[in-house]
C-alpha cells in the first residue's frame, strides 16, 4: 500500500527561495500595549525600602505584577532612583513626600508581561519588567528555529505532498496534497490528495487522518481508486501512537476550519503548510492551534516550499 515515490535529486531542491515562518498566537506577535501610571523620584535614599513597602500596601498594582517597583535613572539625572507609585486614575491624596519622594510625574508602562525578546526590549524601554521568555516564539522570530538540514527534510516531505496533489489533479480533483510524517523515525505514515469533489469533507488533511487510522488498524474509508492516497504502518515503535500524537502534517495549502479542528482532535504535533487560504484556520481567519480554551495546542509554520505550492494553487484555477 505504500505509495512509490521517486527520490528527489539535490539539484531539484530550491532551498533558497523560501523560509518557514512560524504562525504565532496574536499575544506573541503583537506590539507591547502601554498604559499610563504615576511615578516619583526618590529624594531620600535611606527611605527607599520603606517607601516601596508602603506603596505596595497602599497601591498594590493589580494586573501589573510584572512591573518592577523601582528603576535606576540614567547618568546625568539629579536623582538615582525612581519608583512606580500608582496607576494614573487611582485616586489618592496621600502626601508622598513623607516617604522621601519628589513630585509625581506620568510614565507609560507595559500593560502586560512581555513573552518574546522583541516585546521585552520594547517593554523595558518604558519601564523595567520581569520576563519569562517563550523560547520557541523568540527563536521563531529570530528565524533560528530549525537546525541545519531541517529545511531539506521539510522540502522532501512537502515535495511528496505536491506530488500527491498532482496525482489528484490528474483525476480532475483539486490540486491539494498532504503527508503525515513521524519526525522521530522520519517515516511517511500517510500520503493523500484532496477528494472533496467525491465527498464534501474529504479534504487532503481529512483523508490523511483517516489513512493514519488505517495504518493503526482502524479507519473508515477505502481509497483504493486513488493511487495518490496511501499509508504505511509505523515500524518505529512497538506501541502505536494515540491518533496522530507526535506526528507532523505537511499540506500544500492552509487547512480550513474543518481540517484544522480535525488535526487538533487528532493531537497532531506540528503543521507545515505552503500557501495561505482565504478561509484558512491556522493563521488567516483563525489561529485554532493557539486558541485559548482548547485542550491541545500545536505549532504551525507557513511558507514551506511556497513557490511550488503557489504553482499548484494557480494551476487549480485554470
Amino acid at each position, binding site marked *: 500500500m505504500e505509495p512509490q515515490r521517486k527520490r528527489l535529486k539535490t539539484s531539484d531542491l530550491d532551498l533558497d527561495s523560501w523560509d518557514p515562518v512560524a504562525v504565532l498566537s496574536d499575544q506573541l506577535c503583537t506590539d507591547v500595549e502601554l498604559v499610563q501610571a504615576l511615578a516619583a523620584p526618590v529624594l531620600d535614599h535611606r527611605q527607599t525600602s520603606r517607601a516601596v513597602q508602603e506603596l505596595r500596601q497602599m497601591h498594590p498594582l493589580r494586573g501589573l505584577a510584572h512591573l518592577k517597583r523601582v528603576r535606576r535613572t540614567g547618568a546625568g539625572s539629579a536623582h538615582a532612583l525612581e519608583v512606580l507609585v500608582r496607576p494614573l486614575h487611582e485616586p489618592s491624596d496621600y502626601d508622598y513626600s513623607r516617604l522621601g519622594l519628589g513630585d509625581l510625574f506620568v510614565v507609560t508602562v507595559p500593560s502586560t508581561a512581555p513573552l518574546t525578546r522583541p516585546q521585552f526590549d520594547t517593554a523595558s524601554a518604558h519601564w523595567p519588567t520581569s520576563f519569562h521568555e517563550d523560547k520557541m516564539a523568540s527563536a521563531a522570530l529570530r528565524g533560528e528555529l530549525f537546525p541545519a538540514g531541517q529545511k531539506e527534510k521539510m522540502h522532501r516531505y512537502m515535495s511528496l505532498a505536491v506530488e500527491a496533489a498532482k496525482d489528484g489533479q490528474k483525476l480532475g480533483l483539486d490540486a491539494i496534497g498532504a503527508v503525515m510524517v513521524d519526525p522521530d523515525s522520519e517515516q511517511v505514515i500517510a500520503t493523500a490528495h484532496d477528494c472533496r469533489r467525491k465527498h*464534501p*469533507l474529504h479534504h487532503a488533511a481529512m483523508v490523511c487522518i483517516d489513512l493514519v487510522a488505517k495504518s493503526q488498524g482502524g*479507519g*473508515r474509508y477505502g481509497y483504493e481508486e486513488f493511487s495518490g492516497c496511501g499509508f504505511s504502518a509505523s515500524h518505529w515503535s512497538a506501541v502505536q501512537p494515540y*491518533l496522530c500524537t507526535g506526528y507532523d502534517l505537511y499540506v500544500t495549502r492552509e487547512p480550513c*476550519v474543518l481540517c484544522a479542528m480535525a488535526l487538533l*482532535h487528532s493531537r497532531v504535533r506540528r503543521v507545515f503548510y505552503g500557501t495561505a487560504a482565504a478561509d484558512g484556520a491556522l493563521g488567516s481567519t483563525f489561529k485554532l492551534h493557539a486558541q485559548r*480554551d482548547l485542550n491541545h495546542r500545536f505549532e504551525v509554520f507557513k511558507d514551506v516550499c511556497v513557490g511550488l505550492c503557489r504553482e499548484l494553487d494557480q494551476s487549480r484555477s485554470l
Partner: protein
Amino acid sequence: MDKAFDMAKDALENGEVPVGCLLVYNDDIIGKGRNEVNQTKNATRHAELVALDELRDWCEVRNVEVKTVCERTVLYVTVEPCIMCAAALRLFNIPVVVYGCNNDRFGGCGSVLDISSADLPQTGTMFKCVAGHRAEEAVEMLKTFYKQENPNAPNPKTRKQ
C-alpha cells in the same frame, strides 16, 4: 430528539463520548450517528460526521442530489456541534441545528467559537441554531463519561511534555 438520546446512550455503553444525532428530512430520519472515534481510531468520527455519511448513502440509493436534500434537512444532536462538525455542517449546507447542551470544550456554535454564523465564504453556508433541548440530560451523560474517563486516551498525568 428521543432517538438522538438513544444513540448517545449507545455510544456511552460502547466507551465512546456520549453524543448522538439524527438528520431529519420531510419527517424521515435519513441519517443517524453516534461518536465512534475509539472504534475507528479516527478522531474525526463524531456523531454528526457519521450521520452525514448515512445521508449521502440515502441520497445515492435514491439517486437524489445531496445538496437539494441537505437544504431541507434539520440536524438534532444531544450536544452542541464542535468546531469541526460545525464546519462540516456548513459544507453540507444544513440550514438548522437543534441541540441539547453547550459544548464548553470544543463548541463551534458559540461556546468556543461561532462557526455557524462566521464569515467564511469558502466554507459552505451559515446555519441557525436552536439550543437547550433536554440540556440537563445531555450534560449528565457527558459527566458520566468523563468520570469513567476515556480508556484509550493517554493518562494526562503520566504523559510527558
